[in-house]
């Protein structure tokens, strides 16, 4: 094993072991507290251009399963863990091989809790990880680094694809792919929706002309303000709109609310949210660095879910037009499936309200 280093913007350097020999990457350093689901995390397009620290120390224990992938490849820019198990269940690939195959730099044998605490106290940061000795070159690279503004474009599907409902079709959904996780499409299909996945730059006309019951704004990476929201504005009130994660933020911007960058975001599988109407609590899977500013939500919208830990907006809906969004991930993967019922609710809502819009 070779050595690797993490370089922070303030010049701090930490050493670790590396899985590859010759690699340098940069990205936003974030941590995830889920104790299982490393493969789902690695392949979630929302992690594009991010370097992910897993706070759970033993990673890779059960190997890699093709069915767990949330997209076709590893999307995270880099991976930082305490220990790579190098084991797998019978007949499965081990994490090390998977990382190598995807040429993803993975740092291990490092005090991940220490890194997590740095992020907790100073906020998510850009950093550079490299197998090289840190020199002025790296410092300059990092100083010049900007998180890619076009990140959604890089992860969105380039072509349109239609998926049949699993079981009886109840509804017909369009989905705008800002970096969608397979599980969202799968959850919709399982709940009875046929889903047509469109690239991020699909026009509102295409959507409205597609005889859909609703459109889903998917999750995805980066700052929602880097995404063009014109098309979503055009769709408002004309079709039922649902949003998850980045989709939620885009919808919020479209109705005139504002979003902000959180200190270090929510990434984990244990976030409690309360349904403001029913008073019921759900444990949710989350992965976001931006959030909707509650105070900026217009009067004709209503907050539907709040995070119990920090009171941030976890979902909202419109009082007058069919629009419902959540910040968390009802499709889970990884994480608890408490909120999976939302897909069913949305599909029923779309059938009821969508076309009347």
């Amino acid at each position, binding site marked *: 094993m070779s050595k690797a280093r993490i370089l922070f913007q303030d010049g701090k350097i930490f050493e670790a072991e590396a899985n590859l020999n010759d690699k340098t990457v940069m990205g936003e350093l974030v941590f995830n507290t889920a*104790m299982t689901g490393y493969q789902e995390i690695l392949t979630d397009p929302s992690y594009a251009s991010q370097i992910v620290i897993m706070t759970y120390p033993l990673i890779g224990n059960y190997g890699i399963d093709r069915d*767990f992938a949330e997209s076709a490849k590893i999307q995270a820019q880099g991976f930082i863990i305490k220990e790579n198990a190098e084991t797998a269940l019978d007949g499965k690939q081990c994490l090390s091989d998977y990382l190598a195959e995807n040429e993803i730099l993975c740092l291990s044998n490092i005090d*991940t*809790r220490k890194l*997590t605490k740095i992020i907790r106290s100073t906020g998510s940061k850009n950093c550079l990880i490299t197998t090289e000795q840190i020199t002025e070159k790296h410092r300059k690279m990092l100083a010049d680094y900007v998180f890619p503004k076009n990140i959604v474009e890089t992860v969105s599907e380039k072509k349109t694809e239609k998926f049949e409902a699993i079981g009886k079709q109840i509804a017909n959904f369009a989905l705008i792919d800002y970096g969608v996780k397979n599980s969202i499409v799968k959850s919709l299909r399982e709940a009875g929706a046929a889903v047509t996945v469109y690239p991020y730059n699909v026009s509102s006309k295409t959507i409205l002309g597609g005889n859909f019951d609703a459109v889903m704004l998917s999750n995805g990476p980066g700052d929602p303000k880097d995404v063009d929201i014109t098309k979503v504005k055009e769709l408002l009130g004309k079709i039922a709109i649902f949003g998850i994660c980045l989709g939620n933020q885009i919808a919020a911007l479209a109705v005139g609310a504002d979003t902000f960058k959180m200190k270090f975001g929510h990434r984990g*599988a244990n976030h409690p949210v309360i349904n403001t109407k029913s008073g019921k609590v759900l444990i949710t899977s989350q992965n976001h660095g931006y959030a909707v500013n509650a105070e900026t939500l217009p009067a004709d919208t209503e907050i539907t879910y709040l995070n119990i830990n920090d009171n941030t907006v976890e979902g909202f809906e419109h009082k007058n037009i069919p629009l419902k969004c959540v910040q968390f991930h009802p499709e889970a993967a990884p994480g608890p*499936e408490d909120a999976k019922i939302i897909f069913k609710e949305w599909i029923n809502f779309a059938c009821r309200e969508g076309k009347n819009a």
Partner: protein
Amino acid sequence: MPKDPTIKKVIVIGSGPIIIGQAAEFDYAGTQACKSLREEGIEVVLLNSNPATIMTDDNVADRVYLQPLNIEALEYIIERERPDGILAAIGGQTGLNLVTQAYKKGILEKSKVRILGTSIDAIQKAEDRESFKNLMLEIGEPVAKSEILEDIESAVVFAQKIGYPIVIRPAFTLAGTGGGIAYNEEELRQIMYNGLAASPIGQVLAEESVAGWKEIEYEVMRDANDTAITVCNMENIDPVGIHTGDSIVVAPSQTLSDKDYQKLRAASLKIIRALKIEGGCNVQFAFNPKNSEYVVIEVNPRVSRSSALASKAAGYPIAKVTAKIAIGMNLHEIPNYVTGKTKASFEPALDYVVVKIPKWPFDKFGYADRRLGTQMKATGEVMAIDRTFESAFLKALICLEGTVIGFRSKKHEQLTQQELINKLKIADDERIYAISSALRRNMSVEELHKITQIDKWFLYKFENIINTERQLKTEEFSIELLKKVEGMGFTDDEICSLSGKPKFYIDTLRRAHGIYPVHKMVDTCAAEFEAQTPYYYSTYEDDDENIYSDKEKVIVIGSGPIRIGQGIEFDYCSVHAIQGIKDNGYESIIINNNPETVSTDFDIADKLYFEPLFIEDVSNVIRQELPKGVILQFGGQTALNLAPKLLKRGVQILGTSVESINVAEDRKRFEMLLKELKIKQPKSTAVTKTEEALKAASKIGYPILLRPSYVTGGRAMKVVYNDKELISYMREAVQISPEYPVAVDQYIEGKEFEVDMVCDKSDILIPGITEHIERAGVHSGDSFCVYPPRTLSETVIKKALDFSKKIAKALQVIGLMNIQFIAKDDDVYVIEVNPRASRTVPIMSKVTKVPMVKLAVNIMFSKSLKSHGFGVGLLPETKLVAVKAPVFSFQKLPEVDVALNAEMKSTGEVLGIDSSYEKALIKAFMAAGTTFAENGIVIVSVREKDMAESLPVVKKLQELGFTIAASDENEKYYSQNAISVKKIDKNDLKSIAEKIKSGEIKMIYNLPEKDGNPKAPDFKLRELSAIYKLPCFTCTDTIKEYLKALEYKRQNPVLDYKTIEEYM
């Protein structure tokens, strides 16, 4: 909903005496629950019979009833206290059963007492196998194919239908008592027989065996708002088939994918919702890793041992939150006490690995059946935390305080290949060492997996430890290697022994390169939020998050896992010591590793270190904290054993000096001291040959007590009265272990009594004297004892006081000391001195209201005994009488002899309190679960020598209306002495068992010729008494008192159930 304002007063039910399967975890749960309720302004009334607990302390509840956990007591207390609600879910199965009984009898309804938290309905649904199974089918959760059975033949038919192996689980029993796995018809018949007997309703569940599947547990919580969360999941390293209490358990699960983790989580939450549990609940699954199939094994609708483990493992206080839920609060309204910022309605994220290993009593009962199955055998457990599995595992092994210093056992290293393979096939407490030996002999993980069915992930980890061992043995020693092995949890002792490097070498490298562990926090959230809790574990990483205050600190060393002879009483003392340290204005720090206890609750001490009580780990804490001193005298022998090592490292030990401890513990030095003080001691010497023994006997004079220094095959102490008996004993003892000497002690057939005292340099305070009911020869821990003494003369008491003063002065005791005496006529002999807290300290503190531990701590901080206002010398008695009764777990330990001798066997104790001896005695027997029969058969089987002594007892039995049944010599003797005896055949166990079951036989009075031989008919008889919970007396002194109690009870005395103060 916020707290229900109509609940103003709550009665909390404890779990009673410690038995295998129900231990200190319920003291932890109960104490938390009481505190949690009082925090909300609720008045708390507590009922528990176990005096060694913290929960029965005055300051835990508003009123404490140290009374039997039975319907009469509960009804009486409810009548007098009129509580608004009753909390049943934190007192284990015992508490639950009592409340269920009260509910069924209409007592709760009559007094308008609401059951708080989970309803009785829900509890019954979860506990009754049939209704549980139906509910699971209803909600679509898979369960193993099973049938409820009430006779053996239908079990055979069922087995023919679904095939072997078959698991038998008796309904309504503790820790699966009486159950097992049957691989063929013969075994099935035997297990069914035991199982039906063990179940109070004569019902068992026979089910398809999923042995070999993974066993996974989820600790879940639900509130009335239907919010349900997982606190922690756990994976048993041992596959299904071994009781989870006997399994090595790791948290969180290691080998489940997210999909499988969530699948089981979702199932758990579905179940807890279907059952409408309000509070904590444990769900156990069998999971087939080959196809992700699972079945629900069991649900415990209450806090449990697993919930205590999960609370400590995750930093989430399940019992505390359960209590809040019980009074109407919801999870999202209850704070997360660790972060102080977030709420209880989240799921802890761990960023470390937790390993729990059970502590079994086999080091004590070397002859007991060590095999593990569905019946729990462990008395306690240890937990270790680290950032790697290897280290958490190795730390946990060290926590067990065995002789090992690493993952190696000499015994297993010496086995032949075939012996080793045989060992691997048997799931017993030592299998883990068989695995390490096999790996050391290059057996492959595949092969081991095939034999043991342990998941390969764990086996790879074990292999990693062995490979690293090899590195240490063969590679050039380097800093990198040292860092690696430290990260994996190797002890310095092990590193030295493997690498051949001397200790100073390792020490030098550490110093030069700063290789020391750091301490990290258990914070429930994987560092996502800033945490307030000072709950730490050590690890070899970069960042030390320990916050060192500039206050002066004092460290208390805890007592580790609960074991026979070192139980919960030392945790009581440790907790009191912590409070005492705080009261003196110092920062209190505790080091301990028992997840079940109150002392390891993170809000007890100012700082908690969850570490092995091993010198290296303890030193690492001390090196960082730089305490004013360390207190050892409350942590039992475990803590005291550290004394010389700490002293060598220059650590200040508060209280009695190490030198004085040495004098008390070194036989020769102590003998000399007593001689100088002119205090008598039974004469004693050690021999290895029969001739030597005879010589010693003639010098000492008969009777003499023989004690082998190494006990095997149940051969323990024996009192011999002549040369013939001596020769016979020696022949056997010497044959067994010629290299170990036998102690020859003068046996003084007198009254045994003991005193616990607090001492400063000039005075001693003895709150009271306890007198043993059984004569010398029965271990003090297994004796009934009574406070105040009933038969000791004034002269004897005076002498004891005088001796105590002299010994305290000579040993310069600062703090607590316990002395055991024997009085024969007016002669007083000292038999044992313990310069530390003893088993009886909690009892004496409670019945005399002298906070002994706190006084001891104050004295360590230079306060004088006199200044406390409790007086000095022996305190005057009050009207209160207290009788302590031992409680045993023989049901769980086949092959351990029920007959009492000098080897301690009890796992717990209860206290009977009243203002008359007879009433206190009745209560003690009732609390211990001993029934009082009206009439029926008593089997009497008494050794020839003691027949004469037994005669008055047998006469009394007859007088009380019992039918005497005896055989052979006994039958002849009693018949000749005007007793009508029913002749029985002791070898016909089957018909005896039938008669016990049918209720004809009520009691056994057995003084065995020789104890410990499992093949003897008497042994079988005693075993039956354990199986059927029949009163069985193996010492004449006990049965005499029992008959006194029984006779008095027949006069229908009015028993009242009040607090200690009211009897004083």
